[in-house]
């Protein structure tokens, strides 16, 4: 499962590095959700492909972007760049889980419909 998780995270990173639209990660979440075997798995996979790529990107960019992060944090009336990062990661993680879980649910409904 760990290897599978790492592969999904890497695919998510590659997609986001190469795609211009931010929502491609959600499309990937949706695909992952359809491929999941249970609600728990869809939540888990939705979490990792949303959470880790953004976290890693923020970690990599943090040092060179501190001024920018502080400025942008101020736009959202946040006191620090760390809060902005936490807010951003929570934002994408929730969306990713939601899309993944809903896709799994659709799959389940389709299966139920066939029976």
């Amino acid at each position, binding site marked *: 499962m760990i290897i599978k998780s790492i592969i999904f995270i890497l695919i998510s990173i590659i997609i*986001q*590095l190469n*795609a*211009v*639209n*931010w*929502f491609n990660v*959600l499309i990937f979440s*949706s695909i992952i959700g359809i491929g999941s075997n249970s609600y728990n798995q869809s939540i888990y996979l939705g979490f990792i492909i949303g959470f880790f*790529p*953004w976290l890693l*990107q*923020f970690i990599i*960019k943090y040092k*060179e*972007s501190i*001024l*920018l*992060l502080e*400025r*942008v*944090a*101020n*736009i*959202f*009336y946040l006191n620090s760049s760390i809060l902005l990062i936490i*807010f*951003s990661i929570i*934002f*994408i993680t929730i*969306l990713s889980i*939601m*899309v993944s879980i*809903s*896709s799994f*649910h*659709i799959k389940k*409904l*389709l299966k*139920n*419909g*066939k029976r």
Partner: protein
Amino acid sequence: MKIKNIFSILIILLFNISIIYFFNTKIFSIPPLGKFLDPFNGYLYLSNSDNLPKNDILLEQLTDSVTIVWDDLRIPHIFSKNESDLYFAQGYIMARDRLWQMEFQTIVAEGRLSEIIGINALQIDKFHRRIGIKYGALNSLNAIKNDTIIYNMLNSFSSGINTYIENLNERTKPLEYKILDYYPEKWSPYKTFLILKYMAWTLSGKSSDLAYSKLLNQFNLKTINELFPLIPYNVDPIIPKNTTFNFKDVNIPNAPDSFYVSNPFQSSLLYEPIDGFSNNWVVSKDLSIYNKPIIASDPHLSLTLPSVWYGMHLNDTNQNVIGVTIPGAPGIIMGCNDSIAWAETNGYDDVMDWYDIYFKDKSMNEYYYDNDWHTTDKVVEKFHIRNSQTFYDTITYTKHGPVVWDYDYQTLSIGAKSAKGSRPRQAAMGRALRWQAHDGTNEIRTFYEINNAKNYNDFVNALEWFVCPGQNFAYVDENNISMWHAGSPPIKWKEQGRYIGDGRDPKYEWGELIPHNHKAHIKNPKQGFLSSANQHPSDGEYPYYLSETFWPSFRAIKINEVLSTSTKHTLESMQNLQNDNTNMLALTILPHMINAINSSDLNEIEYKLFSKIKNWNYNNNKNLIEPTIFDLWYNKINEKTWEDDLGKRDEYTMWPQIDKLSELIEYDKSSIWFDNKHTSIKENFDNISLNAFSDIVKIIYQNNLENQWQWGNYQETNITHLAKIPGLGETNLYTSGGLWTVNATTKEFGPSWRSIIIMDNPKIIKGIYPGGQSGFPGSKYYDNMIQDWVKGKLYDLEFSSDKNNINGHKINLISKINDN
């Protein structure tokens, strides 16, 4: 499959799509969160966008290679082998740092802000279109098409900007485009004119005609002239007193027998005080310790980030010039070249007049002028509004300019704060605006020629192109100093344009322009120095009528006092003068305000404050509380003096300038204007002063100001972001200075550029502005100069005609791969 299941699936799909759509869209002022927060493609993608390029850049549009050297302040020094490449590179490099600011200003000027902001910006858009900024820009664009030098200059400049834009994409577009969610458009010379006309609006956009016409309904001319004298009592003019003007053939038209009296309430044109004031001065070599002339300048404008100015050094085979320019305009607006140095302050000529237009009927197809009906022109303006329906507005044009106001239903729609006071009127009337910036003028030619000027004659010839807005140009070369009240205002009869004019009567129409050699100017005066601080150009000897209002002379008095008392001036003495915090209004009236009060009449708290201000040294130092007390006190006296007679200050109502109050305080303490006509007793200045003092002590203690009333806290200078995006400005700056000090730093205005140039060999060039070279908020060069600007420091600016003498990061813009 069950219908219920199908329905559920559709709901879930719709929900997911909605999530994507919602977070991909700007909602109100919130950026599209998904797009924006994405660390791969959103704002974080720009982290390194401000880094200087490491390698040469290939730009095929160039004809030859261009060298760029960025110094420690990030000022680009551009070395080109020809003029076309120079302006191309200027556009390219400027766009690299300030593209969003440049374009945003054009969008505001053109009345298209609602395309970005939405319906909330429609009123200001309509106002900007109706006053004719776009109209003026198009006229100037047409006019310069015959001027090949400027036409080519603007096209090269635009091409440089467009080359930068073409290399952008959704990921790399500047931060504000991501926040506001739009994309840069192609640049053109028209956009440069929009910026220049918008600057003209900032500097000449006063419409006090409305307020004066209200006064004309209330008072006779004698009273108006008493309250609003054309020449104030303490005038310290730009052209030294007692200078004679021996112009030949001065032809000034006769005024009408009586002035047309308009009803000002029937429109909602705002009375907008001018928000540009400035200092500049020049010192001759005889008064300079360096035995070379000195020029100092600090134009005071609205302080914003990105900064109003952008520093640049331009070099080609004909010119070598350094200074600042307005982002979006080619060349250098203020600075020096190898031979001369120059600087401008706002001239305050009245080049904006309003006319009542009498239409034949509601259709507004014809209007009455010179005993005949004339056909109007109409232009339908289309407003694309973000997330809303397209709006159309028809603007009617007459020979007096665009009709800014017409029917009552449009009153509120053209940017008025309120329709207060408006009342129904015969529908077939309107009010047109004649503004000199509507004309097809070519001010860029002035700066082009000044940038290339070798001597005084070149400079004077260059000024002939300068029309609007009127500016005081200070000049120095190695041997000469000069000051020109430049601009080409129309010849007017005395007080023409002070009140709303009669659009039917040709007498109210503008005449020819003042001849170039008749403009107020002086060269190498005996006194050895010259200065301007937006005050009256002359003491009344000048034969032409220029305006009813200039800025009070308080700053000018201090500048001239310092320049005349010191025997030899140094860089330090000039810098000290720029940062001088002596409150000249206080110096003039505070002793009278204090003398008016008998300390035995004061209670304990009042006495405490009174003792403080009594011992004040008139210095608006940020750590002192006395400037705050004085500011509250004189404003209260001002209010108590005028409000009962003239009404509350609003868009229709203005009070006399502060130098009128100062005159009354100094010389007429029993004036009837001090008497409150709503009381039975007859008050004089002493009563007003005491009452005002008691009132402000209450204000101070009721608002708990006593713990935070140091002048720096009370004044609290804010440098806001140009689009008012929170977090991208610098607020709560703790500053000294004020409205009545040479260091005219106030809440939102201040020295937008401070510079001192000594015409030594090599030149000593100093400068600073409140901001930084970069327009990118994530850059350390976005606001790196602000704290030093607050402290009054100046930076050394590198200047040489040899690129190898400039220290910094160097690259080449190359036209082909093997170019070098």
